[in-house]
């Protein structure tokens, strides 16, 4: 424990060490931050990880490719569908397999619904950390409940879906589900305006988030920050547009960016992304082709010797799976590139010189999930 004694002209002040320990209401998960505080101002911040490490990458080496899909659910447990999708796309890239058109459209609908659900929760917890105790969070959960109910009807579970399969999806979308999705899109369009009125222009919210945690473009790129955090700093990079997969190039949507890179911009990018996702879902539901959404893969999947890296745009950023195959049923090595890990790395830089209340605000605006970071 280091103590630095700084002397100004009249007073000698001393830093003291505060543990924002693994259990804390506003670190999103088990995150341990060691803060050096001078009065109210944070001088330094050290991040300690690993409290949620479950050695998923090692487990993958003793499971077959299909058996690992439930494990990917538990990485980013808020948007499990997107994790499933990224992993399955990586395995299909390794196998050089094409999926049917209907499966692609279904996957896009499901992935965008998962994105909306994750952003609603991110915005809700962000507002809760700032002190708008529970009300935006409850509204977020109320709207997310509709998405979760659609998923419950679709695959049978509310949080860990295990829905994507190598070569397609597990169940087909029934007509009732398509109608439910359409109704949800109409409902959500009005609700996003509610969030704008409740939070976006609110004077207190602006005072707490404007100019806090400014991440310049160069810093964001050099720390490999991705997702809404990167787009909030002015970099127009979205994997769905720049490296399209699953047929995203057929859909019309905008990439939302903001210029300043502070916490309000990151929050606003997420809110705008909800609107864009609603557009994509509407186009996909209208253009859903007929057919069978699964391709018959053998029970035993043995890719050829080789490696593949596939990255997908998850709600938090670029989620990548790097799989090395040695010709057997189990992967030789599976590496998960999680977006929250890189997003968290930039935290000590952003928080230097700000107050502790601002630290909580920045952590909320980065929208990290410890399950993804520790794996």
């Amino acid at each position, binding site marked *: 424990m280091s103590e630095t004694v700084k002397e100004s002209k009249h007073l000698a002040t001393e830093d003291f060490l505060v543990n924002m320990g693994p259990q804390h209401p*506003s670190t999103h998960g088990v995150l341990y931050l060691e803060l050096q505080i001078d009065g109210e101002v944070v001088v330094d911040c050290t991040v300690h990880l690993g409290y949620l490490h479950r050695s998923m990458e090692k487990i993958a080496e003793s499971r077959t490719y299909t058996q690992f899909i439930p494990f990917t659910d538990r990485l980013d447990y808020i948007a499990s569908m997107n994790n499933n999708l990224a992993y399955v796309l990586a395995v299909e890239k390794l196998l050089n397999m094409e999926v049917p058109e209907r499966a692609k459209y279904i996957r896009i609908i499901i992935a965008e619904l998962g994105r909306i659900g994750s952003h609603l929760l991110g915005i809700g917890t962000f507002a809760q950390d*700032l*002190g708008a105790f529970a009300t935006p969070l*409850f509204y977020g959960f109320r709207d997310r409940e509709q998405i979760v109910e659609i998923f419950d009807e679709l695959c049978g579970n509310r949080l860990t879906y295990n829905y994507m399969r190598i070569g397609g999806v597990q169940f087909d979308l029934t007509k009732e589900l398509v109608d439910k999705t359409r109704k949800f899109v109409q409902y959500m369009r009005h609700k996003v305006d509610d969030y704008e009125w409740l939070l976006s222009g609110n004077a*207190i*919210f602006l005072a707490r988030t404007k100019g806090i945690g400014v991440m310049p473009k160069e810093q964001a790129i050099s720390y490999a920050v991705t997702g809404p955090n990167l787009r909030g700093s002015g970099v127009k990079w979205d994997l769905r547009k720049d490296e399209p997969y699953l047929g995203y190039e057929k859909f019309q949507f905008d990439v939302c960016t903001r210029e300043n890179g502070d916490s309000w911009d990151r929050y606003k990018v997420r809110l705008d992304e909800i609107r864009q996702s609603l557009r994509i879902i509407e186009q996909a539901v209208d253009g859903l082709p007929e057919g069978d959404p699964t391709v018959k893969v053998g029970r035993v999947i043995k890719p050829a010797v080789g490696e593949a890296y596939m990255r997908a745009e998850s709600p938090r950023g670029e989620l990548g799976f790097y799989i090395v195959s040695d010709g057997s049923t189990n992967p030789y090595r599976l590496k998960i590139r999680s977006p929250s890990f890189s997003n968290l790395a930039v935290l000590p830089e952003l928080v230097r010189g700000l107050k502790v*209340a601002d630290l909580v605000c920045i952590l909320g605006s980065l929208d990290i999930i410890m399950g993804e970071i520790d794996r």
Partner: protein
Amino acid sequence: MVTLLDVIIRVLVGIAVLGFLAGSAMFLIWLERKVSAHIQNRYGPMRVGWHGVLQAVADAVKLLLKENIVPREADKLVWWLAPFFAVVPSVMAFAVVPFGKHIIVQDLNIGILYITAVTSICVLSVFMAGWGSNNKYAMLSAMRSAAQIISYEIPLTIAVVTVLMFANTLSMQGIVASQAHRWFIFHPSLALAFLIYMISATAEVNRTPFDISEAESELVAGFHTEYSGMKFAMFFIGEYTNVFIVSAIATTLFLGGWQGPLLPSPIWFLAKTYTLVFVLMWVRWTFPRVRIDQLMGFAWKVLTPIALANLAIAGLLLLK
């Protein structure tokens, strides 16, 4: 000449007010939970009693059964007295609140000055709680809270003085009487004073958006960390009683007190007071929290200059 009958009536009214106070604290706790629940599209307490009205009783019983943990190196007397200093001044302020046309415990002719003096004692409880806890985070939080309360007393008092200029008297019944033909809130300058009063009152009773002392997601834990069981409950009873008192004072000063057609006067008084209480709760469940430096900046750079300017303008308006 004070007769025995007068004294007996006064004592009876005092006992009635204390009884009302106890019931009112329970009612306010239930109201807060129900209002917050309906804002968030859920039910709130529903099990204990009809729609959960006895929930406060259940909570009180639970808190009574909790273990009373005293911190080791704590300053015992200071630590033990702090919850009392939170509750007692608010109860004392009830002595001059005009509940109805002749229902007031004692109509002091310095009524409003008495209330301002008595509610200022609440700062002491915060500070004593922080000091007595022997916990550096509680102390930090208590200092911030004490600074907040003291800063916001200034615009509060200036707003009250603005009203007094129009009312020409310090006694509470006198202020109500001077609104006989028009409530004070309809004067433009006094409407602004009402706004300043409500904002400062929200900060005085430590409610969102000014509730950093109770913030759970901040690092420092709040001045009441080391309290458990009934002492913890006393702080919260004190807070709810404070909410009622500031609403009651706002009703008396700005909304015409117990005046109103047809219905008996206590009902009008309670209706107006509980409307203001509802507004305070509504605000609590909508807005995020203000940061401590922004809070102090707001008090000194926005509220106090505007309150002073309003005072000057009110004086000018009275000249003509």
